[in-house]
């Protein structure tokens, strides 16, 4: 069902994610750079929203995304754009504040035409294998949180 997405580690310090979309690269690129569009989908687990989405999509421009859940838990990331090639490629660095900043994650995102749609390839480069392991483990915690939240929702139904 979710076979459209691939997620794999590569070498010592990379994580590569690919995903196909049924829209042309221009639309997918815009959905990655226009704050009004980003706020509609880049939300992670169910129940999280992004009240702050600042995005200066130009070389040297900065971005800042802040997420909160219904219980008031929150975290944010900041980043800078290094290269933008509309509508095919974005290179940026980002770090997450939990609340201490994580080491910089260097991300190259490509949007390649694929039939009438787009193949997106996001290649993350972490400074070292330890940071990559920590990043994957952090992603896990958020994934787990979503699972526990869903479990909470299910409990009344199965009692």
């Amino acid at each position, binding site marked *: 069902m*979710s076979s*459209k*997405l691939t*997620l794999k580690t590569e070498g*010592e310090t990379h994580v590569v*994610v690919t*995903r196909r*979309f*049924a*829209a042309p690269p*221009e*639309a*997918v690129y*815009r*959905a990655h750079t226009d704050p009004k*569009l980003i706020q*509609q*989908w*880049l*939300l*992670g*687990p*169910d129940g999280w929203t992004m009240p702050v989405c600042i995005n200066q999509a130009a070389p040297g421009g900065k971005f800042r995304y802040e997420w909160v859940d219904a219980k008031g838990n929150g975290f944010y990331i900041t980043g800078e754009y290094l290269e933008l090639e509309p509508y095919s490629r974005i290179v940026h660095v980002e770090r997450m504040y939990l609340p201490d900043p994580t080491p910089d994650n260097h991300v190259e995102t490509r949007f390649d*035409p694929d039939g*009438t749609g787009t193949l997106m390839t996001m290649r993350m480069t972490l400074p070292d*294998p*330890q940071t*990559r*392991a*920590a990043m*994957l*483990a952090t*992603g*896990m*915690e*958020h*994934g*787990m949180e*979503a*699972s526990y939240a869903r479990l909470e929702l299910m409990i009344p139904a199965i009692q």
Partner: protein
Amino acid sequence: MLMASLDGAFAALADPTRRAIVARLAKGEATVTELAKPFKMTQPAISQHLKVLEDAGLVTSRVDGAKRPRSLAKAGIDALDQWLAMLRSALENNYDRLDGVLARMEKPNAKKGAKR
């Protein structure tokens, strides 16, 4: 508890030698002597790496006479697999939402049909 064990597993796998040991054990069990050979490391050094992998729940051993062949611990490896599936599903949530956003976006400036 599951999370704590996964933290240990990821920390253990942050080391390239230990990843290589896991890759070797994926092909079948091996003794410390057999493991030490391709890595050009001393047996105590390999034993130290194996201890980290065992503590992380990724590798297990059995007694075979004087030998203690090591193999992958299914439970620990399965936990890693499950975690990857979960991370994948969290990302898939985002991109499923993006599918919806893209479907609602109006076509950017009339561009007269397909150009590709």
